[in-house]
């Protein structure tokens, strides 16, 4: 099997690292070799966070080269731009369309041009899937499940090395028991967002 490369972008605190761990564990359960690289420490405090997940049979480094990611999963709108150079020309992107405006933008130190970002992403055609994962997460009662909504949406893409069942199983194993139900609802909400968007048939 060719190596499958997944980039997860987001803002520190959104659970991107957990999402990458869930995907990695699912891939391990599917019988593949796995490498991940995660951003932790200071950068995670509302900073830009990019995680790399590599799945396959013959792996070397954990960092995905530019233009080699099969899928870009972005938990925040503008962060998708930071992960974009990693995406392969025919790679697919699942992007939470909900912006997180950095305080620096309100202070006039930087610019968050939501319109330009949406326009750029729409120009990319069928391979970009914009969803409001934050809204779906809030419906479960906790915005912190945004990462699980995104994983649910991701699970609807064709060509993944893991099934939706394996993904959820891995999430269930990692999450503390008291959070499982709310995250399960979030994962299912993500799956319906992914399939309702008409982007792809359900896996499994």
């Amino acid at each position, binding site marked *: 099997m060719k190596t499958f490369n997944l980039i997860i972008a987001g*803002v520190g605190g959104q659970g991107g690292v957990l999402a990458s761990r869930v995907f990695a564990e699912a891939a391990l359960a599917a019988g593949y070799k796995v490498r991940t690289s995660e951003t932790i420490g200071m950068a995670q405090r509302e900073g*830009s966070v990019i995680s790399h997940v590599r799945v396959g049979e013959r792996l070397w480094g954990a960092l995905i080269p530019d233009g080699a990611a099969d899928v870009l999963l972005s938990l925040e709108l503008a962060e998708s731009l930071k992960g974009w150079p990693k995406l392969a020309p025919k790679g697919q992107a699942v992007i939470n369309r909900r912006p*997180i405006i950095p305080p620096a933008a309100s*202070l006039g130190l*930087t610019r968050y041009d939501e319109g330009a*970002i949406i326009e750029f992403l729409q120009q990319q055609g069928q391979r970009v899937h914009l969803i409001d994962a934050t809204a779906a997460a809030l419906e479960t009662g906790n*915005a912190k499940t945004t990462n699980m909504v995104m994983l649910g949406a991701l699970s609807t893409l064709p060509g993944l090395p893991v099934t939706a069942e394996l993904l959820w199983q891995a999430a269930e194993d990692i999450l503390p028991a008291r959070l499982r139900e709310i995250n399960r609802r979030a994962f299912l909400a993500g799956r319906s967002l992914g399939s309702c968007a008409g982007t792809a048939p359900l896996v499994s």
Partner: protein
Amino acid sequence: MNRLAEPPRRLLMGNEAIAWGAIEAGVRVVAAYPGTPSTEVTENILQHAADYGIYAEWSVNEKVALETAIAASWTGDRAMACMKQVGLNVASDPLMTLTYLGVKGGLVLIVADDPGPHSSQTEQDTRLFARFAKLPVLDPATPAEAREMVKAAFQLSEDLQVPVIVRPTTRTAHVCQDMPFSPPPKPALPLPPVRFERDPGWVILPALSAKRHRRLNAIQDEVRRWFLQRRLNGITPTWDEGESVSPTALAGCANKAKDLAIVAGGVAYNYVQEGLDTLGVSIPVYKVGAPVPLPAAPILDFLRGKTSVLIVEEQEPVIEEQLTVEAYRTGFALSIIGKHSGHLPREGEFSTDLLLPLLRRFVTDSIHCNRSPAHSASAASIAQAAQGRSADAAASTEPAITTIPAASNKSAATSETANSAVTPALPSPPLRTPILCAGCPHRNSFYAFIQAARSRDALFTGDIGCYTLGAMPPLGAADTIVCMGASVAMAAGFSHIEPDRPHIAFLGDSTFFHSGIPPLINAVYQQARMTLVVLDNRTTAMTGHQPHPGLGRKGTGETAPTIDIAAVARGCGVEWVRTVDPYDIPATIAAAREALDYPGVSVIIARRDCVNLVRRSTPYRIDAEACRRCGLCLRKFGCPALYEVKDTGGEAGDKGQMGKPAVAIAREKCFGCGACAQVCPWKAISPEVES
């Protein structure tokens, strides 16, 4: 010459000469921890401190001493920290960061080495430490030279904005030498005041660190050029007071001797010259007074036409290794005799007696004669073998030794541009730096102190932990950040230099136990006037919520004794200690004002659990009608749950607020701490009503 115009010759001990060198250079702050053989430097400074307007102290340890000196340097004063070689280990944390950030006023470290050792637990070579830190080192051979080198070190430090180490060894520090000396004229006191100027360059953050590391590497060649311009190294060094060697050759060796040369560093130079004198041999000696970073090219120039060089330096082969690398790199064919060849020990102190047999062999024996190791009589030398191979390969090549290769950082330069070219149409994403979490109690503490103190132009010294992010806009609540614990020592240091300005150190609870206690003791002992704010969020938050001695549990989860921070502070001698809840902003501001009015060391413990360890409560909302759009909550407080609503409907904007965007709270991010409601002057923020 009129002898009356000459200063009288006085006998000065090396450490005394160093002290006078510093006083002559206009040092204004000296902090030190005693340690043989460095102690008398500070003893002598303290003795003359009052006369020359110098602030000098025995700090509680070398780290605190260096941090005190850093504070002074950053105000523009010349500052000095003194210690012995093992003391540098203690001071290494601030030193390694200081090398990146650099200095303003000249900052000189006197680090005395103790080969032997006579009075130390290790024989470590400070020059190796300096290579590790990428710092210039001056290595005096005599007390007179040490005095001049200290003055040069201050100049070098200011010229290139790096700290500089002067490294006397026991036989410089504890040697007495006659030299022309009269004390410098006493200045009119008090000296003109200095003031710390805020600059983002004094706050170490990863992005700055990456930039400054490139700069530190880039100035290494500038340092080498500086050494050469000042003739700190060379065949006739500036401060070589020794007698010239008579050119009578040892019987039977006249021909061989002209193929030989010696390179000697520090005090070893004296033993070499005396040894040659004793043997009655004339061999050119290149003296190295500035071994790190070594300007190797002129030494190779000096060695051109020679077949063998003897490198003599106490302790580690610092000169030898740098020279060997450069010789090999430039294809220079030469037999190098020293420590790697097994001819000189890496341990213990040198002496003329120790060197004499080797010098004799060097002149008469075959240890230098054969350039090929296959024919060499002294087969033990790995270095020689390497040199022999290079000799064959490069025999016909003109050695390229006239220029020092420029240090470059190509990989860093190319990686910066690599990403941008992939998709030209990519819009630029917003800058997103890490910031304090929504609901973080540290934001309230910073805000309270800004309210209480910024009108008095207070200085905020920051530290390492989550609260480093207090440096970010809009709080900007860190004027300096160096290393863990430095905030406390530096605030105290600043207070001795700028007594009219409030100085406030911020430190986390875990950092308090890590390295906050010694500088707190020092601040009390030295009678500083400062406030320490312990930002106590009951965990080690940045790294993932590890426990510390204040929490009553261990890493395994087992219960443990609880060490109370307030009690420790009182035990350190702090008389004004108060614990506040930073979620009560008015009370925190009031406590901050009281603390700042206290004429000594005050400690405020701002205690509230990390938001990542407790449940959030009811989120807050902004009443759009009551909001006057002053932006204070956003622009002064800066909770990340607050954001501007760009496209307001016409009806939402009332008169007088035209064009100003409204502020809203991102429900999913709001922690429900209510700080914004306390900050809002219009009472426009309140908890959501449960539906």
